[in-house]
């Protein structure tokens, strides 16, 4: 735990902090754009989700793991992961409920050609996937970077947030 605290202090400086805030804001904005326009321009839920996760990653690199976990607790990330995945599943299942018996039917109207509000469920799917992917990758990121434990150490060094029971 000690070296994590030291790491946090090293990373922190006013310049790094300010720049990171700005960069992070832009990255997240870009990620949202990629998600929202996924059905019209290159990108989509997955790419956008990874970009959003990169935004969180920069926060972690600059301010340390603690800050990231305080913004997005692991249990919350795990929950968002499940919710995002389930939303996507629901959109797929909607076809069975609304248009009779066709799994993954695009059951919403298609809207105008090449408009933002078009293509039925596709943009909604993108949003659900983005939510899911962001949460997943932030989880993976946090999980793998807390693993900087020494070999042969006791299990107690693992993070407690993940624990059940």
């Amino acid at each position, binding site marked *: 735990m000690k070296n994590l605290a030291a790491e946090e202090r090293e990373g922190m400086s006013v310049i790094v902090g300010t720049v990171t805030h700005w960069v992070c804001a832009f990255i997240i904005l870009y990620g949202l754009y990629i998600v929202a326009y996924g059905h019209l321009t290159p990108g989509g839920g997955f790419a956008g989700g990874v970009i959003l996760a990169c935004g969180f990653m920069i926060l972690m690199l600059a301010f340390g793991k603690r800050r990231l976990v305080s913004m997005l607790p692991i249990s919350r990330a*795990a*929950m968002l*992961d*499940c*919710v995002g*995945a*389930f939303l996507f*599943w629901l959109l*797929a*299942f909607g*076809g*069975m409920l609304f*248009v*009779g*018996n*066709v*799994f*993954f*039917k*695009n059951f919403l109207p298609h809207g105008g050609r090449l408009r933002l509000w078009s293509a039925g469920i596709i943009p909604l799917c993108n949003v659900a996937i983005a939510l899911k992917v962001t949460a997943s990758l932030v989880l993976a990121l946090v999980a793998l970077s807390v693993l900087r434990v020494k070999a042969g150490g006791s299990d107690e060094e693992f993070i407690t947030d993940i*624990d*059940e*029971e």
Partner: protein
Amino acid sequence: MDVLPLMVALPMAGGFLLPLVPKKRSLVTDVVAVALALALAVIALSLIGSPDRAYHMGGWTAPIGINLVLDGTSKLMLAVIAVVTFSVVLYCPTYMTRFTGKRKFYSLFLMMIAGMNGVVLTGDLFNLFVFLEIASIASYALVAFGCERDELEASFRYLVLGSVASYFLLFGIALLYAKLGTVNMAHLSQKIAEVGGLAGGDVVAAGKASPLLVFATVLFICGLGLKAALVPFHAWLPDAHPSAPTPISAMLSGLLIKAIGVYALARVLFSVIGVHEGGAVSTVLMGLGAVSMILGVLLAVAQWDYKRLLAYHSISQIGYVVLGIGLATPLGVAAGLFHLLNHAVFKSLLFLNAGAVEYRTGTRELGEMGGLNKKMPVTGATSFLASMSIAGIPPFNGFFSKLLIIVACFQAGRWGYALIAVVVSVLTLASFLKVQKYAFFGPLKEKWQNIREVPVLMAASMVLLAVLCLATSVLAFKLFDKDGLEQGLRNDRFLGAAQRSLTDREGYVTRALSPAVEFKPTSTDGTDDGT
């Protein structure tokens, strides 16, 4: 509402939602998992009677979209998966109390089922790859679930070899796409038939076969053979299967290597590439099967670790299945599929027995046990039944499937293979007599004076499987028609239908590419074999 997509969608939703259950509500997790398994079993068994059909995802008729294909073979696989899963799930609530992380365990467990059902149902090669990866990744994590040294090591090796296998498969798919421009299995099958395909060994010998198709076939056999743990590719199995928590060992040995290994291999080779009796592919399959049978049993005989011994027997028994299917005669394929079903039942039971013994005694060493029958009568009795089944003693199911495989070998004029099958069966019997002698019979050791039978749910799950060991023998009786086995096979609605849908390539194409039929739940026309 057509229930076909539910076979995949239900366990998937369960997997997504179970981690959201509050930690304290451990009971809710158990109940949801058991209820889902029960629902799947009910749906799968009801599907046996429903007509063969294709289901087109998103309303896009294949090959534009992805299709699910329900035919005899997938009905058989779905039923086996669902029934064995249900029995194993009953075992979990008690057994898994010694591990933490129950919600994640069930989530991964359900994902594995979703993956297997997806592989069994899909009519699209790339989709098969995706669902195969779901099942595989869930199983990698489950093998390491205990987080102990051996488990992690076994899991890592399993993961590496499993990923190589997946990439072989993906590469094969990419090659087929490069040549034929589609990834739908039925569409590919049509196009391969047009270009001549691998049609039999004679064409390969004459140099007419397309080298690209040959390479793709080699990749499929290597990749899916790795998943099925056939002998040159078996290195991961003896470590991975015993390391997992017992219900998972039962699932891996009983179902996973069959659903994503043997079934996927058989489906790709028979329905897409095309297998002919006496052809090159058939010969390779029989060779792999025979080598697996011999080596698996020889390695098993020397084992003293209960679960490891069972894992080696899995290799050997998978060899029987592949030998039967590799014969490519109607009787051989039916016998192979029948043995697949039987092996799923008795091998999961054997693993559950081993887990029950471990649960009470804390050891897997056969030498340390002894006389457990006196203290654990249910475990002992079910284990005896399962041992006799796997060793091929009448009237248990293993006897009939092995008998049919041997008869099929004789009919095809493959005396050598028939002899191997008999010898391996005798060795299997010897190995399991050893297990019975050292673990369950003989004098009870001093240190086991205080142990008791396992709790009721675990016992119930073992009894259920033991009953199935006897009950599935009935499936064989239908084949013994007075007009001979062929006629019996032709009339049979379960094994026969499974065999017919696997070997009838044109029928598969017609069924898979037919537009969605309006589903009528009242229809009782369950014997459509597509010919």
